[in-house]
């Protein structure tokens, strides 16, 4: 580490001519104006997807007029056509959107939808042969494991993938950060779950989601159903049940749906309790294929938030500082619980 005579500055190298301060403002505003004209709709939709707060207000203050202007100009579509080949995302073009059906409130939500109805048909796949002790019933092989959800599923997804990699299991990790069942702006989980099941045909699906819930659902007559009463839980459970039905692929796959450890914040706890209640109700018709794994009592016994708990005989921090997510150690605990259940259901998994 030798001493440098003089520390280099960025303008020591050859640069173009110096302009005036006014030119820097002109340059930035020309860029901003072009972006408003070409991407106004995108700015507005980004603002709409943001969580409530001052940043959302500021972005919408610019995005709404820009979006209004962009709606009246054909430029945004042209830009999308030109740049769409660069997009890394798969198009979610399949069916199954939550919002495709007309909003009709919890009563209709509870009764409608393929496979999501209160009176799901009872067929042979409702029963687990091994549970019934049928002679010759063999545990299936786990070849493809889908681990999905929102930010809660990280780093559980990667830990699970590591633990099963030696068993020849192909793990598909598909986390969608900032999304939720009650928040369809970024990702509609109705469409996404349909596409995941179709594209990957997983033998098992691990779902851990709920960090971004609590948004109102559209209800009948243009009214919205606010979180977190029974009406909200009905719609949530209906959507979750539809996803479970999609993932279980008519009995060909097992679904492991993790309940939420209660978060630190009191308001978020109310949402988490509603989500957990909805998950339990949603899974009822599919109990032979859908396992609800209780993370609530593991991490927050007695409904009490705690940062640390005993892990392998040592007091260990299991939550992240945000009071919502599990840290590496907490995820390792959850991974162990999921693996234990996977081993009970599949033949190929070793220790």
């Amino acid at each position, binding site marked *: *580490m030798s001493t440098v005579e003089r520390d280099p500055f*960025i*303008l020591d190298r050859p640069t173009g*001519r*110096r302009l005036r301060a006014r030119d820097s403002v002109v*340059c930035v505003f020309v860029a901003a104006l072009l972006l408003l004209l070409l991407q106004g709709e995108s700015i507005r939709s980004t603002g709409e997807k943001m969580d409530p707060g001052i940043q959302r207000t*500021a972005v919408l203050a610019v995005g709404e007029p820009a979006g209004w202007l962009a709606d009246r100009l054909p430029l945004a579509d042209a830009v999308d056509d030109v*740049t769409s080949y660069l997009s890394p995302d798969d198009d979610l073009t399949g069916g199954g959107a939550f919002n495709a059906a007309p909003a009709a409130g919890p009563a209709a939500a509870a009764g409608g939808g393929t496979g999501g109805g209160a009176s799901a048909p009872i067929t042979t796949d409702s029963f687990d042969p091994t549970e019934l002790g049928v002679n010759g019933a063999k545990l299936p092989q786990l070849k493809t494991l889908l681990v999905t959800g929102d930010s809660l599923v990280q780093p559980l997804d990667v830990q699970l993938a590591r633990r099963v990699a030696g068993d020849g299991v192909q793990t598909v990790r598909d986390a969608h950060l900032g999304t939720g069942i009650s928040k369809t702006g970024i990702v509609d989980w109705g469409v996404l779950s349909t596409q995941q099941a179709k594209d990957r045909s997983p033998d098992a699906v691990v779902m851990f989601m709920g960090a971004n819930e609590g948004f109102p659902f559209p209800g009948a007559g243009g009214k919205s159903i606010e979180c977190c009463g029974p009406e909200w839980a009905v719609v949530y459970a209906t959507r979750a049940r539809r996803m479970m039905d999609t993932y279980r692929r008519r009995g060909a796959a097992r679904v492991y749906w993790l309940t939420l450890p209660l978060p630190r914040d009191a308001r978020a706890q109310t949402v988490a309790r509603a989500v957990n209640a909805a998950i339990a109700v949603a899974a009822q018709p599919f109990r032979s294929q859908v396992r609800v794994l209780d993370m609530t009592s593991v991490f927050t016994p007695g409904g009490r938030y705690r*940062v640390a708990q005993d892990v392998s005989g040592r007091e260990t921090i299991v939550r992240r500082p945000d009071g919502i997510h599990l840290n590496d150690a907490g995820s390792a605990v959850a991974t162990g619980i999921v693996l234990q259940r996977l081993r009970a259901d599949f033949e190929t998994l070793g220790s």
Partner: protein
Amino acid sequence: MVFPTVQFAVFFPIVLALSWALMRRQNVWKPFVLAASYVFYAAANPLFCVMIAAVTVGNQACAQLIHRSPDARVRKRTVVLAVALNLATLGVFKYYGFFATEINGLLDSAGLGLPLPLAAIALPVGISFIIFQAISYTVDVYRGLITPATTIDVALYLSFFPHLVAGPIVRAREFIPQLQSPRDPRKVAVGAGVALILIGLVKKVAIADFLAREIVDPVFGVPQAYAAPDVLLASYAYAVQIFCDFSGYTDIAIGLALLMGFVFPQNFDRPYRAASFGEFWRRWHMTLSRFLRDFLYIPLGGNRGGKWKTIRNLMITMVLGGLWHGAAWGFVLWGAIHGTALVVEHQFRGKVKLPRWLGWLLIFHIVVLAWIPFRAPDLDLAGVYVARLADWGPATLWTAPVVIVTFLVIALQLAPARPMDALRVRFEALHPVALGASMATVILLVAATVSSQGVPPFIYFAF
């Protein structure tokens, strides 16, 4: 707030326009830019602003005391106190959890049931950069290199939003003089600023995030699932990713500052063309290298105390430099590898002469190898990762875009600088309207490569 986001795109034009409008009225300009910087920082968590305000007030009080005291012992004790308080702040936020866990483990294995209390402490974004700059201010006052600035100048120095969260680590004596008179509105390096912002955006969003998504994150996440060809390519790809991610951030930071009339030191100079470790550290994270040199290596005695003290000083500097990145054994190992390499290089200097190409090949591959514990989630997985390099099997992630992008970035660092510089200078000479149109075009193209997950945080935000 992250640079490549809609929030920042709304924030910056307003701040830039008002900043130049108010520039001549410094008594208004300074509170305005300070407020804007705190708004920028509060976007991550408003409570972090309390931390930065406390660091500002504490260091300013110590600097004033050092400057006013005629007693050398008081001055020395004060600077020691200031450095200790700064390091304690860093220690509580950044290292408490790591050391509490390690010490509890030791106590447990010794059968002593006296665990330290465990707490999940939120890490303020960029705290290491803020603390290092605060140390640089107080120590430079102690050394007589600068006189104490006004409190608002110190607050602006520590919180100026372009460099607030991930550097470059600007020294007080480089930045505070720029605050002492209004920036000249007739001499603004607009073209250079725009060029740097665009280069930084492409590096971060189109290259670093692309490589992370396509190969680095999958392979480093579950190395057991991949054979040697994928593991090898992921190693090169991570070397490119971390360079593009970090240098992309500092390019944008330096470019934004230029548009506001401020000049920052250079932070990267094509580091992967280095043919020695000394050269690598003069090209990689240059502002951290000189900070470690001036505030750690030289105060420890540098290379003045003979062979063994030089070795000791190099190892201490590099291991602490590694630990600066975070509380994990992987960073310590990374620092130790670089320290050992510098020691070996120091011992063989003048005795062994390698051809430059061979030196480059050797250094580059040791640097790539050292990134493995730096990136791996823990040392066990780093070991698994290295072991997979010996397990030949199919290449499942070798796609043309990944291979081309990885090796093109490395090749560009080895290419002569002059043609690229000439191209950049021609771009910088464009009319401001053309520069603005170019900026919009590049932003549109780069934005199209962003996944629905949005732009991941810069790697160095966590440091």
